[in-house]
């Protein structure tokens, strides 16, 4: 080995050493200075975890402060995934736990496998766990790593199914809700799914507690950095009176039960009973639009949704055989209003000068329009009648006449030809009323434009594009293509009853802080528009509506026979023909007559005459209003078998 070579090699070693140190320093510069900020940020998110816990949800109370929905504390079983991170151990614990709790181990697995739930938040796997099961687990804590029993507030429904459609139900937030809600919702949280729980979610939810913790590499919580107290959700004071709600619901259910046992005599071919699959009742205060009771049949049990609804029950609720109990018929149901619509036609006829409050008309039992003959129900001739008696006996011909004459105006392109449609729209038909629950239907007021449109869209199914006289005649008695919802009908009659103010219906009268009871928001009535009606017209119509119940010829007289005669009640029946189905039974009532405080609508599908099913429901509901004993009415047929 020459010295020269050695010197050279030593030199190379030196160069290698310098290169190595330069590499290290450059890498250090890259990590700490060039990308240091990014890594520092990563370090923070690495260490700090935000744990969000739901605040107690606000209560839902009735107008008198009675509880409709509040919370109860249930013992739930949760699994802390940080503690149970060992895969083998996890399998053992899940197996044991599902056996003890008698639940499917797959359910537990899928719940704790959900990576979207914060890993620092214990995952609830079962609620309402019996005490002996909890004891069993607690005594064998070493076998149940990470399993704990914690109190969990869940919704409580002290009145069972009462007001189920109104209050709606809650459930675990789903992906869609999570992405559309801009707020700080997290998976696993409870959210309102329908009814008031959904509409007032922002008030009921409150603000979750936010705990920031520092964790170590194993995910163990080391210390709490900050804690923000939860703000409990606000209490909602509804305009609903649970006493009236109870009466409305039981009346609806009871009368439907009775009607289902009655023969549908309109079917001449065979013995058929009424199907009466569903119906609804709406009662409002006509002076401000606040809803007093709102019932839909069939109903459901919101308590079944508390821990995620079991699949068989969910399937049952969505089976067409069961008439869709989750649907809120009071706001979603679409029905031909039939004779209850005559109120609109009457006002339209008066406003266009076709009739006056006192003018007479000879009802011969039918009216010839163009080449077609339109008959009264039962072909009965009522003789010379005026507006008032036309309403009492529910003469169709009287209103056909108005419809027919208005069509002529339309045809001549004179003003007022669309008076029925315009009046209907003024009273709120054909558009949503604005009730915040139940995914409201708009309904339909058919006119020339609508007919042209459906024809253009589907010329085969709707061969006629022209608005024919018959169309207007049908509309004048609420048949044909007219569709309304029970809530629309209630608001329209409220408008008539209060002298012309159309209100937006509302359910919540007050919002309060749950602990201090401080009023957060006092809800005021929302008037939408005022409709001019002459006093003589109103009086004449009121006389007619009064006669419906108290006149011997009144269509609902039999239904109200057991109702005290000293209490002034008025109303209007309706029997709607539905193609391929039994008739829809409708009734709208209001009381007292002079200055009404209650307007009630009942509509039952495939239940025959308005007087047979719907009128008794309203009668019972009014009995509730006046604190009278409620009595059944066995399918009160209208006098002469007409409506």
């Amino acid at each position: 080995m020459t010295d020269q070579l050695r010197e050279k090699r030593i030199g190379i070693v030196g160069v290698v050493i310098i290169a190595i140190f330069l590499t290290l320093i450059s890498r250090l510069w890259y990590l700490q200075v060039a990308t240091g900020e990014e890594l520092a940020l990563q370090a923070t998110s690495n260490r700090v975890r935000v744990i969000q816990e739901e605040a107690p949800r606000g209560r839902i109370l009735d107008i008198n402060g009675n509880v409709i929905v509040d919370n109860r504390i249930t013992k739930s079983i949760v699994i802390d995934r940080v503690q149970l991170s060992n895969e083998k151990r996890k399998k053992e614990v899940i197996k044991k736990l599902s056996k003890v709790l008698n639940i499917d181990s797959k359910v537990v697995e899928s719940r704790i496998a959900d990576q979207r739930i914060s890993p620092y938040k214990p995952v609830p796997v079962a609620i309402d766990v019996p005490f002996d099961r909890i004891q069993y687990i607690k005594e064998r804590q070493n076998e149940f790593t990470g399993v704990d029993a914690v109190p969990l507030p869940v919704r409580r429904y002290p009145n069972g199914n009462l007001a189920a459609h109104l209050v709606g139900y809650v459930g675990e937030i789903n992906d869609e809700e999570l992405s559309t809600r801009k707020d700080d919702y997290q998976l696993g949280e409870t959210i309102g799914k329908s009814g008031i729980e959904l509409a007032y979610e922002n008030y009921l939810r409150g603000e979750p507690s936010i705990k920031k913790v520092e964790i170590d590499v194993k995910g163990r919580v080391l210390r709490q950095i900050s804690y923000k107290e939860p703000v409990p959700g606000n209490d909602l004071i509804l305009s609903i009176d649970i006493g009236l709600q109870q009466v409305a619901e039981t009346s609806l259910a009871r009368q439907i039960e009775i009607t289902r046992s009655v023969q549908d005599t309109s079917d001449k071919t065979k013995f058929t009973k009424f199907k009466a699959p569903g119906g609804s009742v709406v009662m409002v205060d006509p002076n401000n639009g606040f809803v007093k009771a709102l019932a839909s049949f069939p109903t459901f049990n919101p308590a079944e949704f508390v821990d995620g609804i079991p699949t068989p029950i969910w399937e049952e609720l969505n089976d067409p055989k069961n008439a869709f109990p989750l649907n809120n018929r009071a706001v979603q149901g679409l029905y031909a209003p039939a004779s209850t619509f005559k109120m609109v036609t009457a006002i339209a006829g008066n406003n266009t000068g076709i009739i006056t409050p006192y003018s007479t008309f000879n009802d011969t039992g039918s009216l010839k329009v163009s080449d077609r003959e339109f008959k009264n129900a039962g072909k009965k001739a009522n003789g010379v009648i005026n507006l008032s008696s036309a309403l009492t006996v529910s003469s169709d011909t009287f209103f056909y006449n108005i419809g027919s004459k208005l069509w002529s105006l339309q045809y001549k392109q004179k003003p007022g030809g669309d008076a029925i449609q315009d009046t209907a729209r003024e009273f709120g038909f054909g558009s949503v009323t604005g009730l915040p629950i139940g995914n409201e239907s708009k309904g339909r007021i058919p006119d020339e434009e609508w007919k042209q449109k459906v024809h253009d869209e589907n010329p085969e199914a709707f061969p006629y594009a022209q608005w024919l006289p018959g169309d207007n005649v049908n509309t004048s008695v609420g048949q044909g293509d007219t569709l309304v919802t029970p809530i629309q009908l209630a608001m329209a009659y409220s408008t008539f009853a209060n002298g012309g103010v159309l209100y937006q219906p509302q359910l919540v009268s007050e919002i309060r802080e749950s602990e201090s009871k401080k009023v957060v928001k006092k809800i005021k009535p929302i008037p939408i528009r005022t409709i001019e009606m002459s006093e003589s017209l109103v009086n004449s119509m009121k006389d007619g509506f009064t006669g419906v119940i108290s006149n011997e010829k009144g269509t609902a007289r039999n239904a109200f026979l057991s109702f005290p005669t000293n209490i002034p009640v008025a109303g209007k029946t309706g029997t709607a023909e539905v193609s391929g189905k039994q008739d829809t039974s409708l009734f709208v009532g209001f009381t007292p007559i002079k200055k009404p405080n209650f307007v009630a609508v009942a509509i039952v599908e495939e239940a025959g005459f308005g007087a047979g099913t719907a009128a008794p429901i309203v009668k019972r509901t009014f009995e509730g209003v006046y604190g009278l004993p409620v009595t059944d009415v066995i399918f009160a047929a209208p006098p002469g078998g007409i409506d």
Partner: protein
Amino acid sequence: MPIAKTLHQAKRQISAKPWKQIDVILISAVAAISVLGCLMIYSASRSRLGELGISKTYFLERQIGFVIIGFVLMGIVMSVDYRKMRDVSPFLYVGVIAMLVLVLSPIGSSVNGTQGWFNLPGGFGLQPSEFSKFFLIIILASYIAANEQFHLGALFKTLVIAAVPIGLVLLQPDLGTAMVLCAILIGMLSVAGTKGRYLLVMMLFAVVGVVGVLQLGVLKEYQVERLTGFINPSHDTQGITYNLDQSKTTIGNGGFSGKGLFKGEQTNLSYVPEQHTDFIFTAIGEELGFIGSATVLVLLGIIAWRIWRISRAAPDAAGTLICIGVVSMFVFHVFENVGMTMGIMPITGIPLPFVSYGGSAILLMFMSIGLVNNIYMHRFE
């Protein structure tokens, strides 16, 4: 040439007192880095110890003890002329082999899957593989220096001499130490005058060897993953690359000026595994920032420079080769350790010289510096 003669005489005079010839810069750098090491061990271990309910100064106290023993051992190594060690190298070789065989027997004990420790009273463990580095340097230097012409036969014999301890270390298995031994071998062989192409072939063998070890299943699965984690960072999400990510994140969190001593957030929360031993550099990075970490690298660089410098001043070939062996070992330790914490080298259990906690490693480093100083002291002879 009177001046030359006077100089020569002066040299002779100075050499008469070898103790006055020690490399003060080298010793100072070692002392400084040792003190810094103690401080960082305390910082990196106190919260973890506190959590376990053990005295927070447990590792600090022991490390101070190791450093003191280290200085004493360094003094002892300096006081025995390295040429005497060279003369007994065959016996040293037999001793090293015996220790490495013994540790594989039931007398030895295993930590983290590596059979590499002798348990001593007082909870101390002795790692013969650490000391094998020191002795292999002396043995190889003696053998190579004894061959005036470093021909192919001598090269072959040298390789065989080195292969036995390397093989035994691999049986533990301690891949990190085996790699250090290879680095020492290659460093020394290159200065011995081995032809460039042979060196290249050997380096190729070393790489093939490492891959072979990984493939043959000598290592436990987690050891393989640890080694390859830096190549496939996305391979696993929570395990090895997680540690690597934490390591890089922690260093990056320090930024330019650091979070301040004892104020490292990641360090205090025990995010990085083995932070007082193999990953001590992350604590330095987070708490002292770029300024502090670079200072540590500069101090380590000064040590490397001084050792390299001494290799050129050595009075004989054996001295030069010893210095090259020590500097190869030292720089490989630094490169591998610091490189792994920053994600540019595979993760192996190699400590950072004078900084990482660990008795055997600290003692080895002090002994090696003693050996280098020994050579420096005799440079005029």
